[in-house]
């Protein structure tokens, strides 16, 4: 997208266009279920993929502004995926990405200068925007229909505040993955574990064989040191305690150091604090705290470690030239459930699309982004991979990289119970403070009870 340049001659034309837009605004009708429509025939009439958008009428010349936290080079696939919308409606999308997004969006919403739409990476931020600024507009009918059709209940709930549905899910990431080396597994005759017990048995077997350590991990991440360990606990608690306990724990309806959580963290400790299991390629248990999370899984490629639990976005951290595929150098398997009571729990994250006004063009774009059409357009526009959505209308064949396909399959699994990363939803003092800190202390020797107790006492 090139920068807009305003020349004097065009300024007059622009003034006329503004006047025209005001007149068009008067002609807008209230459609069904709170949607607006513009007059005229949509330029997308009869074109493939435009079916949902023709109802909004002719939006030629209108502009819709979008504010996100995604910057170059990841922004280009997003911008490319709007081409179909622009063809269908005639409107233009103005994309703005900023790394200061989370602070700036609140400032702009509070001072009455919000964008038309924003990609919100955390349900907690959506909650803040809705309750503190009152600037977010509820999702129109077609968006809600799309979400009901293409996303699970769990996902819709994260876009809902106080019973009102505001924001449709967009992209997603999957954290319940264990990275491994397919060739190492094949050479040693190891099989991908289907249950937690299988996984522990495999770990014991690898440890006994003594060629490599079964697990490697790294939780160092600057001021956020400790977060990969919080993901471990969340992932395991989701399996030992189940989604209900997980939700209660996240909302502090049960204490942070509840027995269920103690059990969960001890289960994590059976792996992460087991000298026989860790820390492949780095050293003893304590080396987990000093190893950067970006490096945590790299011993797998060097043949010094068998398994590493980390999210799908870890794919970007493998050295250049590493083949990430089921028959390649590294790949991942789904972290198996513990017992059969809770289905297949999936820990992850994602973005949500919030709108700040109910203009026709805003609603049209919101509808487009919540549709299966967009999810497939986005997949096609991301040739390098590294993007996935929980939209079950997404055809996995359109995803380029095998790890994206695996993530999409895990998300689309009807038995899957999706839960958002809890530390992102807890109060900042805990979720971005004591939780990280105490998990680091836990790795370096602090007891489970003491660690959880300290986090509990820090809850505001």
């Amino acid at each position, binding site marked *: *997208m*090139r*920068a*807009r340049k*305003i020349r004097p001659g065009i300024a007059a034309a622009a003034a006329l266009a*503004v006047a025209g837009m005001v007149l068009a605004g008067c002609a807008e009708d209230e459609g069904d279920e709170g949607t607006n429509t513009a007059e005229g025939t949509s330029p997308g009439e009869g074109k493939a993929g435009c079916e949902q958008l023709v109802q909004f009428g002719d939006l030629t010349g209108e*502009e819709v*502004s979008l*504010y996100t*936290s*995604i*910057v*170059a*080079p*990841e*922004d*280009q696939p997003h*911008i490319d995926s709007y081409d179909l919308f622009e063809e269908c409606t005639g409107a233009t999308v*103005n*994309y*703005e*990405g*900023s*790394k*200061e997004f989370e602070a*700036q969006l609140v*400032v*702009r919403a*509070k*001072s*009455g*200068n919000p*964008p038309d739409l924003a990609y919100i990476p955390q349900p907690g931020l959506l909650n803040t925007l809705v309750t503190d600024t009152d600037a977010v507009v509820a999702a129109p009918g077609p968006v809600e229909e799309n979400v009901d059709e293409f996303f699970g209940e769990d996902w819709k709930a994260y876009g809902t505040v106080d019973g009102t549905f505001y924001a449709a899910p967009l992209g997603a990431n999957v954290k319940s993955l264990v990275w491994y080396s397919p060739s190492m597994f094949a050479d040693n005759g190891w099989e991908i574990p289907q249950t937690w017990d299988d996984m522990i048995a495999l770990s014991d077997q690898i440890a006994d064989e003594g060629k490599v350590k079964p697990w490697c991990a790294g939780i160092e991440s600057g001021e956020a040191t400790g977060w990969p360990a919080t993901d471990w606990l969340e992932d395991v608690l989701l399996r030992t305690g189940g989604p209900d306990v997980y939700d209660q724990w996240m909302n502090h309806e049960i204490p942070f150091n509840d027995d269920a959580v103690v059990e969960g963290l001890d289960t994590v400790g059976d792996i992460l604090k087991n000298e026989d299991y860790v820390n492949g390629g780095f050293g003893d248990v304590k080396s987990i705290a000093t190893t950067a999370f970006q490096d945590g899984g790299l011993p797998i490629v060097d043949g010094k470690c068998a398994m590493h639990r980390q999210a799908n*976005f870890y794919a*970007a951290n493998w050295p250049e030239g590493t083949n990430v595929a089921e028959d390649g150098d590294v790949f991942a398997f789904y972290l198996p459930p513990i017992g059969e009571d809770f289905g297949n729990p999936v820990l992850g994250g994602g973005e949500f699309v919030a709108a700040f006004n109910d203009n026709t063009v805003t609603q049209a774009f919101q509808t487009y982004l919540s549709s299966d059409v967009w999810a497939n357009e986005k997949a096609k526009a991301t040739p390098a991979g590294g993007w996935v959505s929980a939209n079950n209308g997404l055809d996995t064949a359109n995803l380029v990289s095998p790890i994206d396909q695996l993530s999409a399959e895990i998300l689309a699994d009807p038995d899957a119970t999706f839960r958002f990363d809890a530390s992102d939803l807890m109060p900042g003092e805990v979720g971005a403070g004591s939780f990280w800190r105490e998990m680091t202390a836990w790795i370096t020797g602090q007891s489970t009870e003491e660690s959880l107790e300290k986090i509990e006492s820090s809850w505001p």
Partner: protein
Amino acid sequence: MTTTNPPAGVVTGAIAKESAASTAKKALTNPWASLAAVVIAVLWTVPTAGLLISSFRPENEVKGSGWWTGLGGPYTLENYREVLTGGSSAEFGTYVINSIVITLPSVLIPITLATLAAYAFAWMRFPGRNLLFIGVFALQIVPIQITMIPLLSAYVKPPFNLISLAGGEAPGGGFYTIWLSHSIFALPLAIYLLHNFMREIPGELIESARVDGAGHVQIFSRIMLPLMMPAIAAFGIFQFLWVWNDLLVALVFGGGSLDISPVTVRLAELSGTRGADWHLLSAGAFVSLVVPLIVFLSLQRYFVRGLLAGSVKG
């Protein structure tokens, strides 16, 4: 005795003075002191030199080893190419032009207003002058962070149904709000600084001009402005560097349009969404450094002179 003693005392005093001066001279030309100065200078320059070397190293080298291991190469211009042509939203040149378009009015507006205001505060008598000056002085302690949301709200929905300055429909595409905000934040310090400088100009000069029949306008333009040039230039450099390096004001008041974003916005995004491209930052730092460096070096002599403006008379 009494007649001979004082000269002797003076002589000894003179000798003592001379020896004090020579000790001072000795101390300052002490080879150890020089060595210390050189060591400090080197220590301060080493990180910058490391940054410069890093900016020319290939990505894998930067991420794999320290800059001191790269003294012998290999070198590449790839980082600079990426900084200058990468990014998908706009070309780098657009950001540079935006920075200039933002900076020039943001320096000229506060200087113009502050010089006039400083003159009024220093040499015109009007009721409430001191109270008003204390008010302006006190405004310096208001942190700009707490003014942002109220100020932006005022731009978006101005009182008395005035035309909105921020948002998509604003005239000038949003530059006005950035210029105005920088001016607002700069004025208290500018007025204070220039006022104190103006007070130091001898009153006789003004009086004699007045006797010759000069009014305020003539006194201001014929006497004050030429005498004030060093102070104005010094403040100009201060303000230029502040505005050029500013990210916060541009982000908040820019109304969220990349079309009017300065270079700093591009630099802030250089490392990518998850910070994976941090090897570009050193090259970005040097690219953004060029313009302030030219301005600083060419106006440097005013800078030191102007730093003393507003200080106690010596």
